[in-house]
């Protein structure tokens, strides 16, 4: 009996000891990585950079539903190109009606999404400097892309939130976040300060990307899968767009020319193929969407189910010449109404359209319009008209002979036709005439006067509450 007691005691106490070493409470994740010890070589930063590109597909940025697509669909819905359709569940009504409030989900979603991309861009270069000594060319490749991406997202924020786009404006800018530190409480600064940092980032990115370990992508490819990333050509396009907004016309001409020279316009025959993602002819940068992801312009028209949330106004459709190759690429008469078919489907899915298409965020077509506008505003009518007519001809549209104010108006009209639902219309009006009047199919919410607060989105209430340094836009 004595033995058995000893035996049992040993078993029980032994059983307890077996599981009692403190290693029990050290458990590491297996399906995620620990940021504290993961980033040990430059290739590891590549993974984080890929994550930053992926975040461009966040709901509130370009694609998206339920009040998403604020930098794409909403830019046209808030302007004068669309009116409400039969299947509108009201997700973008607040943008159409200009009644956004600081606690609204739509402005908050857009703000948070843009800064989420910035966060991931910053994370993808956090601590990368210590590899510069040994692996400079690879670091250049990663950091160049990250800084360009970060700069461009700040530009997107500036377009919606800042009242004045001039290069040296002292109006409220956008908090420029260039490092990852969740505790910081940045202030908005001025528009000038925002441009200073944006320009510095883009220039630095351009510099770095001219000296890399390997190319990011082919500069000349026209494959449908190409041009998915940011390279020097994309940075040039970003700079051209930025300089147009900031009214630095010579620089706008310079950088748009770089792109125009490197990536010529598509022919009228090639043009429709761009919208089926069969070619990247004249595409500078395209954000890639794949099966299983969100239909890009679902907020306006959802091919699956044939649901029309917003219909184009006749005033817009009437602008296209009958021969214009854009008409059939952008619009479709389906079930006795005209729907936006710009993002209808990729070639493979055209029989069963799902709305999944790449977002061609920079194209050579826009570069011509930037250069034309810059020339025209400088009074170089012939050069401006030349660029405008080159574009018109490439689209099988009638050329013209405008000059002066008529030329500037014609360029804006061409922008409206060429760049519909590419994230421009509201901002184009905001930076030029600053008045919206919806004349057709409009019973209420038909005009937005220049002094209205709604030209700028409100800073989200959550941000105002959290960040004592944040200043709300006037009127909210």
């Amino acid at each position, binding site marked *: 009996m004595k033995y058995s007691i000893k035996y049992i005691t040993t078993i029980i106490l032994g059983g*307890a000891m077996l599981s009692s070493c403190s290693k029990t409470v050290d*458990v590491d994740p297996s*399906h995620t990585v620990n940021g504290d010890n993961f980033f040990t070589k430059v290739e590891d930063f590549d*993974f*984080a950079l890929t994550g930053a590109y992926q975040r461009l597909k966040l709901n509130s940025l370009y694609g998206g539903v339920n009040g998403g697509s604020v930098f794409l669909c909403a830019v046209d819905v808030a302007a004068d190109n669309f009116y409400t359709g039969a299947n509108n569940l009201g997700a973008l009504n607040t943008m159409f*009606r200009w009644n956004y409030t600081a606690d609204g989900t739509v402005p908050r979603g857009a703000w948070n999404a843009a800064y989420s991309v910035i966060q991931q861009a910053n994370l993808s270069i956090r601590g990368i400097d210590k590899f510069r000594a040994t692996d400079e060319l690879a670091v250049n490749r990663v950091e160049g892309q990250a800084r360009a991406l970060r700069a461009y997202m700040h530009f997107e924020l500036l377009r919606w939130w800042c009242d004045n786009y001039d290069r040296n404006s002292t109006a409220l800018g956008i908090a420029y976040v260039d490092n990852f530190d969740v505790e910081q409480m940045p202030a908005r600064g001025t528009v000038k300060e925002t441009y200073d940092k944006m320009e510095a980032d883009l220039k630095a990115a351009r510099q770095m990307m001219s000296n890399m370990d390997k190319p990011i992508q082919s500069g000349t490819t026209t494959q449908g899968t190409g041009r998915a990333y940011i390279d020097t050509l994309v940075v040039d396009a970003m700079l051209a767009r930025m300089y147009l907004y900031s009214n630095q016309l010579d620089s706008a001409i310079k950088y748009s020319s770089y792109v125009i020279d490197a990536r010529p316009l598509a022919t009228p025959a090639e043009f429709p193929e761009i919208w089926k993602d069969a070619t990247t002819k004249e595409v500078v940068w395209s954000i890639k969407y*794949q099966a299983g992801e969100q239909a890009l312009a679902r907020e306006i028209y959802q091919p699956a189910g044939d649901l029309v949330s917003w219909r184009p106004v006749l005033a817009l459709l009437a602008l296209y010449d009958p021969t214009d190759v854009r008409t059939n690429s952008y619009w479709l008469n389906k079930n006795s109404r005209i729907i936006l078919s710009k993002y209808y489907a990729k070639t493979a899915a055209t029989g069963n359209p799902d709305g999944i298409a790449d977002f061609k965020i920079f194209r050579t077509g826009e570069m011509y319009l930037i250069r034309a506008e810059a020339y025209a505003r400088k009074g170089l009518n012939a050069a401006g008209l030349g660029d405008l007519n080159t574009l018109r001809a490439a689209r099988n549209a009638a050329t013209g002979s405008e000059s002066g104010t008529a030329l500037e108006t014609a360029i804006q009209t061409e922008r409206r036709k060429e760049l519909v639902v590419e994230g421009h219309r509201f901002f184009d009006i905001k930076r030029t005439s600053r008045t919206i009047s919806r004349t057709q199919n409009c019973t209420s919410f038909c005009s937005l006067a220049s002094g209205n607060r709604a030209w700028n989105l409100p800073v989200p209430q959550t*941000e105002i509450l959290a*960040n004592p340094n944040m200043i709300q836009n006037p009127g909210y």
Partner: protein
Amino acid sequence: MQMKRLLLLMLVAVAPFLAWAQREVTGRVTDSKNGTPLSGVSVTVKGTRTGTTTNQDGLFRISVPENSVLVFSNVGFADKEVTPTTNSVNVALEQGQGILQEVVVTGYGTVNKKQYTGSVSKIAGTEVNLQPIGSLEQLLQGKAPGLLIQSQSGQPGSAASVTIRGKGSVLGGTQPLYIVDGIQVTAADFQSINPADIENYSVLKDAVSTSQYGSRGANGVIVVTTRRGQNAKTKLNYDFQYGIQAFPKSKLVLMNSKEKLDYEALYDRPDGMNPFGWSQADLDSLSMVRPSWEDAIFRHAKTQQHILSASGGNDKTRFFISGSIFDQEGLVKTTKLRRYTGRVNLDHTSGGFKVGISSTVGVSELSGTDENDNVISTPLNAYRWTLPYITPYLPDGSYNLLDPGGNPNPLPDLFLNTNKNNQLKLIGVVSLEYKFPTIRGLAVRTQWGVDFTDDQNEDYFDKNTQVNQVIPGNAGGFSYGMIRRVRWTGTTSVSYDKKVNDHNFGISLYHETVKRKTTTNGYTGFGLVGPIKNAAGITPGTPTNNFIPTVGGNVNEDALLSYFAIANYDYKNTYFVNLTGRRDGSSRLAAGNKFVNYGGVGLGWAITSERFMDNQKLFNNLKLKVSYGSAGNASIGDSYEALEQFGPTSYNGIGGLTLVNLKKEELSWETRSTANVGLEFAMFNNRLTGSAEVYRSRTNGLYLNRQLSSTNGVTSILTNLGKLQNQGIEIALSYDLVKNRDWTININGNWTANTSKILALDGKEEIISGISINKIGERANSVYMVRYAGVDPDNGDALYYKADGKTITNVYDPNDAVIVGCFDPKGFGGFGTSVRFRDWELSALFTYQYGFDIYNQARVDVENPQYWFSNLSRDILREWQNPGDITDIPSPFNDFQDGTTRFLEKGDFLRFRNVMVSYNLPRTLVSKWKLSSARLFVQGQNLHTWFSFKGYDPEVFTGVLTGAVYPALRTITAGVSIGL
């Protein structure tokens, strides 16, 4: 004919017992304490209804069959059984002993209730287990003070929200810890457990009881003990019940065909009048349409259950075995739960050894439908939002997809899609105990158990449904997801008990490890174009067909390592002390912060055991107890919450990483310290029993989302930054109005009032999150909104109160939001009665909750005039149209604001939760059928609910009723319970 049978049955029920081989026994019954004779004592022959009562002198006379047993019972005294060996029997009854010897189960042990100083409510399994409910935690509603059960869904197998003594956490879990036969099991996961296997439920509420569970105990603990065999003749039991369920009516009434057409045709709105362009002929014919959507979707659902059990044993080995089938149709035609369970519980004693096994296996098949969302394709939304003049089917029998507003017909999604869950649940516990024969009072014990759940979810999306529109390739899809949860609990202990004169003490030292691993895997495939509607029907993906499947998987692991001690001491069985101390280490906290200490102390004083109470008659029992201690809350975030984590993602076919979790080096558990003062009493010869307790608990290190500047790409970080107080009072009373041989009438009830208060927020005054706010000095989860002030008769604008509460404006400004209510109830409880008349029994239970608000999102979606193309609330017919209109519904031209008090409603309700009538068939009849007992019953569940909330049911535990409501059902069942 049926009536005749019923009469016959009733005659049988009251028919006098016919005896044979009788003899007469006489005797006297006295009080054991002082020898005074007791009158009115019920004397019955065990197992029969033969009986009499004692006279004023305590004397009785009764005829009994040979070898029978007499049972003596009286209010306030313990029942006593005597086998008369002679024709004269004198019996002394002991006062209230039955109550005093009641035990409480604390999970790590069983203690005499009198000696325990913690706050524990006990619910016997037999009180509740016949209710036709698939998930056992729902059975406990209204049964114990301090225990709030809110079941929002009537879907078969759905789980309820359980809160003990108020929510001690804002962001962390508020559900209690569940311990079944000594091991931790996953909360809200009881669809595969048979409630009839449960012996009792103990609800641990105060700190001396919950601190035993350390970092897991802060939300209270529900200790579930399953039935075990007895040293008795083998008993076989068969239970059967069958019933039907019905849907309650919604108080949110929508427009009928005529009303909706009038609204479309005659009301002005931004989209213009008559937007569908109806002609007068259209209007006339459509307004006659009366579609029967409810008939198309709902049914009178059947529910049935069979349970077979056997128990018995001898002095060495005891067993309990059971098997059950539970089959419940949901009210929505495609929903159902079918469950099969089996259980074997064994105990064996040999010398100083005791081994025990508890094992159960449950298999359940659940078919569900989406609920609690506001997605338009969800059938439970779609049938309400579709236009009321559109029929479900076309004349040719096909689905009517011609809704001019584009509202989806819910029927294809409901009938063509399937949503199945198959669950396999295993709970197994083995224990080995050894009592040292040489050292009296010393014992060692080890217990190991596993809670294993394997869930397989299968969703089929047909290509002819609304949801297909968002499926890649738009040709149907099939989704499979597996979740496997395994949790090991191993507990090893040494315990020692000693009695020295009037001093009694015991101490147990424990070591415990709990390891959990959750594995998920799943895929979604597309292109279900053939006849096969499962995994086999998936079309392989190619670069061009858009059918590329998505796959995913994850593993979460964590571990808890603990050392603890539980001690008790009493002096003269009058003064009691309970002590616990526990040190928990968790893998989920950052290195250096992993170990946290908890503890509790309880003191008790049995006042009626004092000399000076000997001469009073009022109290049969009076005990005062106080306790103080702490427990933690560990349910927040994922297993690696403290680490900076990057999760997988991809862009353009290239793999990448994105930040998914911020680093939180300082993260620790919430610690809830509770002080408790309680009084237990029994009065008037134990007719009135009850308890009253007051408590105050403080949660330190309250998890809150500390707001960050969203320019950093995140809006907040989980931080232990607040302090929250809950205080309340609990009262439970039970009174025997009548208790004699023929009649027992008992009424009972309980009431709990709880109020919370935010004490600190790390220097901040308030944290606002949407319409909810946590603000210092206010209740947690307060509602924060702009107040709606009606409609301006001149222009139809919605009016709002400014923050000052006086000024009225037509400008909606979020800065005018103020605290307007709270989502958590101020008070709740239950009351009921149980009546026995001879072989008939009736029990009834009412439950109630009050003092809380509900944000009615479901109403928003039918009162928003932008949704004119769907059906709307009938209230919208009062919409402002012309200057001078006095109404509460603004003009459709006015900006619609949903986050105002216009949609906040009171949730108070009183529910007739359960009523049951049962009848024990007389023994003569039963033995003729060679049975040992037989009982028939009929019960009604949720027969009526009194409330004002505009919806189906006010039991909404998140505070927000989103939509797609599947409310608790009215159920009527009848059954039989037969002992073989």
